[in-house]
């Protein structure tokens, strides 16, 4: 089980061009400043943004492929829509459905796959319980605290047991005290998840706490790649040099 991604896509001003592989059981952090293309990368992997060229392969299965055959000019195209990709996505702003309870939000993912409502709710409730938020299962997203909403969204992304977990800035919306608490939960969840794990962040603390490998993404391109120690020891861009100077302890 692994992910092979060669992605070229242009969205507005951004020209994203990245190549990397990810093995199951390792957590890759994609670190970069705002506008570097982190969210676009997540959207491309999830199938919400078809790529212009390249290919995305998960566990030998081609999810997205667009290759221009130079001699003939013909192009080969494969596109697996998002609902068939087996990717669990935690969106930056969570995107919990506002008209459904926490429980219904999680059960939705199972019902979408044809699980009967009662069975879906039973499994959703069990998962919420294991994340210690069973007590808020009946609440609408608007009345959840930041940390609770985060866990509900996490449960929703995990409940279908996807093969790939994509976390887009999972902690950026939380205040400092909730963040360290939720980071610990996230670490447990990631350790219990066997598929490919990608976490997008601009916070070095997330990388250190959660990831085994880091890709630094700047202006749509990967500028550094390796373990966090390697990257910080050999900074080759102002962005990473700045990170080093801001975090002298790491």
């Amino acid at each position: 089980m692994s992910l092979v991604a060669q992605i070229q896509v242009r969205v507005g001003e951004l020209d994203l061009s990245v190549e990397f592989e990810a093995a199951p059981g390792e957590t890759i952090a994609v670190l970069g400043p705002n506008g570097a293309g982190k969210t676009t990368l997540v959207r491309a992997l999830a199938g919400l943004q078809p790529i212009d060229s390249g290919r995305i392969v998960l566990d030998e299965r081609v999810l997205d492929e667009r290759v221009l055959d130079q001699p003939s000019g013909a192009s080969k195209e494969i596109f697996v829509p998002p609902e068939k990709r087996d990717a669990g996505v935690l969106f930056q702003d969570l995107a919990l459905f506002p008209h459904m309870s926490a429980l219904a939000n999680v059960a939705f993912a199972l019902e979408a796959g044809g699980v009967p409502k009662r069975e879906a709710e039973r499994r959703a409730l069990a998962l919420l319980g294991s994340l210690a938020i069973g007590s808020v299962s009946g609440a609408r997203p608007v009345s959840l605290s930041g940390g609770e909403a985060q866990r509900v969204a996490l449960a929703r992304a995990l409940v279908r047991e996807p093969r790939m977990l994509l976390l887009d800035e999972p902690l950026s919306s939380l205040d400092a005290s909730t963040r360290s608490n939720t980071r610990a939960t996230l670490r447990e969840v990631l350790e219990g998840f066997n598929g490919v794990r990608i976490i997008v962040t601009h916070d070095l603390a997330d990388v250190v706490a959660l990831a085994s490998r880091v890709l630094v993404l700047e202006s749509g391109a990967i500028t550094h790649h390796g373990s966090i120690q390697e990257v910080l020891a050999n900074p080759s861009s102002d962005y990473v040099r700045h990170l080093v100077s801001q975090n002298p302890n790491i």
Partner: protein
Amino acid sequence: MKSGEVGKKVNRRRVEPPSRIAVVLSLLAVLFVALPVIALLRDVAWSRLISDLTTPEARSALRLSLLCSISATALAAVLGVPLAWVLARVEFRGRGFVRGLVLLPLVVPPVVAGVGLLAAFGRNGMLGGTLNMLGIRITFTPIAVVIAEAFVALPFLVLAVEAGIRSIDRRYEDAARTLGASRSFVTRRITLPLLAPSLAAGLALAWARALGEFGATITFAGNIQGRTRTVPLAVYLLLDSSPDVAIALSLLLVSICVVVLVALRARWIGAIR
């Protein structure tokens, strides 16, 4: 909440008083709208209101109006909701032109709309010949009433629903797709429930407009009791012969409009903003 109230108070104290001319003219404007309604209330024969509203003529007009306006609203919804979706979500050349065209019934004089509908569906109209061969006659039937009402009501529905679709955050639909939901499942479980308030507003506005339709109906559908004489037509006709019934029916129409507007107040104002 509290800080907002305090802020309001502070604001009020500091705001420069409005110009007197503006205040006077604003009061005149409010009066201008309210006066006909007040005058109408004065003219209502309250003691006979119920019996006026249950005369055979009134009842037949009310029954026809109710049936036709609901059918017209349904027709406008079937055609208007998909159009609103296309206008809100699909980028294509001439989108601005199409949107303008859909608003046409809002500004075109209803009588002219009626003439246009006659030219299209009338016996000698563009489609009339074909319809005639198929044995379908539209003019001077309740179907003509429904078409005329749907024509004038469509823009209200499209405007409200398009604004509603635009206000739905695409992230919800994106998130639902990644959770394994097909497009139709997303439409059913995410888009339509989130759209419900706007859809209800659009339906109510379209229905109120259909209910009050006069010009296009009398031109295109005629004025036949029990077949095409809706409440507004009956009001116009009865104003000479039995003014009390005409006024009672007018009061009913005004009341319905007020109820719809009050029910929609928040939405309607939100849409304008």
